[in-house]
């Protein structure tokens, strides 16, 4: 097999250099397989006598124009390199999905049910302070955004949920969020209403759906 094929070009080289197309193939193979960028001198040394590596290199460089890899000059040497616009393929993003922290999901729930709502109001409802990081995280996820400023002293900023939020939770509007009595019916509310209050709540549900402000006042 390879014995003859290996010897042949060498013998040929005694007389004349291989055709340019062949030289181009050679440069291509050498640039591909060599562990470091290759200089013209090195190419000359490795290719059959009489070869013109500079010209072959130029042909090769043009052939790779616009391809996924490119024939690139690095100082005095040449190498094949990934096209710059495809560098992103050499990075593999591993996405790790984590559940939102309790603080974040509670803050989000309050904003969704009570929007527009100020930070002070959120803290009052949660009964604990809301860290800046939690708000930042929800804004970064594009689940909440700033609403209008409240027309009260200090003109505090309010928070509302975004379209992205509605998309994620498959809601048309924040009003579609189930009301308290529905939560209770679904077993999501542990505490039992005081006797007799159940009826009242069923009606109150109507009101809840209408205005979230009402719910907050409750």
């Amino acid at each position, binding site marked *: 097999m390879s014995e003859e094929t290996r010897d042949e070009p060498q013998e040929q080289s005694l007389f004349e250099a291989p055709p340019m197309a062949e030289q181009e193939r050679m440069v291509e193979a050498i640039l591909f397989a060599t562990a470091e960028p290759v200089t013209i001198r090195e190419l000359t040394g490795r290719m059959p006598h009489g070869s013109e590596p500079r010209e072959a290199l130029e042909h090769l460089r043009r052939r790779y124009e616009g391809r996924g890899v490119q024939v690139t000059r690095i100082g005095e040497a040449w190498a094949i390199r990934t096209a710059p616009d495809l560098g992103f393929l050499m990075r593999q993003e591993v996405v*790790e999905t984590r559940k939102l922290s309790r603080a974040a999901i*509670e803050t989000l729930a309050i904003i969704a049910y009570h929007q527009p709502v100020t930070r002070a109001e959120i803290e009052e409802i949660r009964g604990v302070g809301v860290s800046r990081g939690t708000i930042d995280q929800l804004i970064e996820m594009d689940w909440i955004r700033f609403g209008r400023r409240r027309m009260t002293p200090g003109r505090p900023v309010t928070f509302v949920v975004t379209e992205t939020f509605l998309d994620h939770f498959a809601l048309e509007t924040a009003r579609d969020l189930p009301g308290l009595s529905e939560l209770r019916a679904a077993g999501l509310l542990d505490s039992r209403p005081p006797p007799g209050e159940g009826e009242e709540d069923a009606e109150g549900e109507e009101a809840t759906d209408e205005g979230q402000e009402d719910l907050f006042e409750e």
Partner: protein
Amino acid sequence: MSDSPEPVQLDVSARLAAEALIVDVEGFEGPLDLLLSLSRTQKVDLREISILALARQYLAFVEKARELRIELAADYLVMAAWLAFLKSRLLLPPDPEEEGPSGEDLAAHLAFQLERLEAMRRSAARLMARDQLGRDRFARGITEDVARVRRVEYTATLIDLMQAYARIRTRDEFRPYAYDRTNLLSMEEALDRLRPLIGFAGEWTDLMSYLPDSWSADPARRRSAAASTFAASLELVKEGAIQIRQGETFAPIQIRRKS
């Protein structure tokens, strides 16, 4: 790939080669290898081989080796015994009373084994003659590693959201007890206080100097403020915003901005 050991001189006679065959038992990889080698002297297709002649050659070989007091491995002798039995079966007319396979069946199987071994030898040679990686074909010289970037994506379901809300509303019915305490500095508060201040802490400074003024006199308030400020400082260390140190047990805790 030659089976027989390399002859020292190429011009020695066939007789010498045959002797070398007898003497050098080590050169063979077991009785089947020896049989294959002997069968080649018949110069026929392995399917046409005379097992009888082959058995005679093998037995003669074993006999000769014994005369020369060469130690023969047990499997050579087992093969010899088996071939002697096969030879007798092939020579004697078949006994209709006798159970078991006929001499022809046994001979055919031996021929099959030899042919198969020969075929594998040829295939091995063809395999090794292929263009090999690192000899005739080459892989990429300059490789690029794939960098693995970890990205955390937070998520929640509608159920999570509703449960969270339900949790808060349920809790509403009993007002949180801790929140009523006025002598309690929350970690969030301490963090809010510490965060803008650390920008100025280029040098090591005592953590206690960061307590809010109104919190350092009363011992109860001071305790709470110290604990929450310390917790807040650990949070900032975790974020990589500051460095923290303590010379020894009970020594002052010092912090400084991470440059």
